């Protein structure tokens, strides 16, 4: 098997995640889709690492995980506080950013 397939898989997962971000309205699910996209990237990085025979790709994937963790913490806190005030977790309800 050609290892490029890992990259195709990553692209597929990334695209599915993006579609989820665009289509789903539940903020938590949107968040999960973002995580999916991040993971797809990580897979690509790890594959590249193996292709090039260096560990730098894995380092980047590692940092991505850390940043994703931080992002999830803050993002979920925001979702919770929005839910507290608006009793809704739908991203469409927070649509005041317009004229």
């Amino acid at each position: 098997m050609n290892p490029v397939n890992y990259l195709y898989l990553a692209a597929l997962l990334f695209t599915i995640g993006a579609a989820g971000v665009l289509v789903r309205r539940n903020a938590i699910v949107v968040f999960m889709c973002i995580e999916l996209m991040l993971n797809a990237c990580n897979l690509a990085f790890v594959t590249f690492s193996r292709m090039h025979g260096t560990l730098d790709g894995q380092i980047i994937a590692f940092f991505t995980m850390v940043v994703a963790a931080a992002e999830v913490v803050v993002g979920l806190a925001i979702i919770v506080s929005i839910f507290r005030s608006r009793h809704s977790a739908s991203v469409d309800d927070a649509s005041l950013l317009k004229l």
Partner: protein
Amino acid sequence: MENLIGLLVLVPLLGAGVLLCGGRRLDRSGPWVGTGLAAVSFVLGVWLFADMLGRKGDNRALDVTVFSWVPVGGFRADVGFHLDQLSMTFVLLITGVGSLIHLYSVGYMAHDERPRRFFGYLNLFLAAMLLLVLADNYLLLYAGWEGVGLASYLLIGFWQHKPSAATAAKKAFLVNRVGDMGLSIAIMVMFTTFGTFSFAPVLAHADQAGEGKLTAIGLLLLLGACGKSAQVPLQSWLGDAMEGPTPVSALIHAATMVTAGVYLITRSSAIFNGAPDAQTAVVTVGAVTLLFGAIVGCAKDDIKKALAGSTMSQIGYMILAAGLGPVGYVFAIMHLVTHGFFKAGLFLGAGSVMHGMNDEVDMRRYGGLRSYMPVTFWTFGLGYLAIIGFPGLSGFFSKDKIIEAAFAKGGTEGWILGAAALLGAAITAYYMTRVMLLTFFGEKRWQPTVSDSGSAAEDGNLPHPHESPKTMTIPMILLAVGSVFAGGLFSINSAFLKWLEPVTGHAEGHSPVGAGQVTAATMVVLVIGAAVAWQQYGRSPVPVTAPRGTLLTRAARRDLLQDDFNHVVLVRGGEHLTRSLVYVDHKLVDGVVNGTAASVGGLSGRMRRLQNGFARSYAVSMFGGAAVLIAATLLMRAV
């Protein structure tokens, strides 16, 4: 000696500063301070005159540069004075007549509330007028020119609480602006042509510039002269300017300021000599105005307006003479001086009459005043004889020469101009006789004046004419003396001609008609004019209310429709022009602008719908953008 010239301007300017800024403590002494300073400048003038007489004809001129005014790169304008025989004549006229009128005003303005301010303005006028005639370059002359315009504005509107006075001041100022614009453009053209403003180089090199340039400069200078001297077509302000106090009318709007145009043309003689077309324009303006003013003067019942028409007409004579070239310059200035004497005298007489008649100005309500105001009657009468050109008096010598010079122009032109001048002389005799008869002869036609409260008591408000105080009569007597003798004095041995010749040059004209014949013709028309007036106003009683009159009379009462002309042609025309411009502006310019704005607005309104507030919509945009970026990157790699 040179330093005295600057002092000549400085003394009245100092007076103006002191009087205008001095505050209330000068209220009582102000008039005498102003009069004293005017007298000081007259004494200075006389001193300089004596000094000048002590030198020979060709090096009588004095030049002094006081300081460099505008030194910018190659551009240079100095404050410098040039005192030659022409300026000297003006200096003596301005300071002499000016001092007398200052003295007169002390009496005339005695009951006014703000005499200090009045004398401040008068001194300001003297300073500006002296600056005008003493300047050694056109730029400084322009400064003086505007200065006298300002003083004229302030003094016409001196009684600014009267709407008519305020309007008249504004009108004078605005009409003068038109002329001033001509003068300023003339000066600019002069600078581009000669590279300097100074009289000496400009006039010396005038013949080197092309005739077209000279004609342009000449016509623009003529426009300036028309504005200041109330010549057709910028004559409309002078009649209204009579709203000012009478001494102002005498000094500024009869004797001195309005003659500035004549000075300008005479001073620029070299330019006009090189531009025959401009000279033709000058004589045309002069001839038209002398008839125009005379006709207007015939119809006016307001004594000051009749005299204003006369002033216009007499200045028309001067402009005509100045336009004739070297033949006429000397006589233009000579008539200017003699006119300064007798017209100032006439105006002061009119002021004296008004003073005695509760400020009534309608001549139809005068009558029989000669026994009540003997001094006024005699001085006014002498001025009258002088202006109509009674043999032996001032006007005779100067006007006769001008008529002669007009005939000497030669050809058809000469005949037309001569005939116009003769006709003017006849009409002058007519209207001045009319003024004389209406005011001092016939029965009393006094009417009770309407008091401030509006109730015209039958008897109580009837005027009680009386002779004016000494401060008023003394200047009148002195001016009458000038009116009688000045012309004769100038003509003895052609003294005035020899005096001015080094500056203006002189050429004898070759008249197709002999000098004696011209004099005889002038006498004949004079007698005819006076006789017609006697027939109309001397033999039959004069109605108090003016009869309807002929079409010409009615037109002349309305200043020959000058204001209607201005209204129809300038005001209406301007309105139509602006309206059409506004239309174009609204439809075309605004259309383009508003159309652009509307299309941008519409586009934005449509684009705004993209901003629907939904984060997911924005995410689609971002994602689409990312896709486009990747596509672009791939394309670049492929290429």
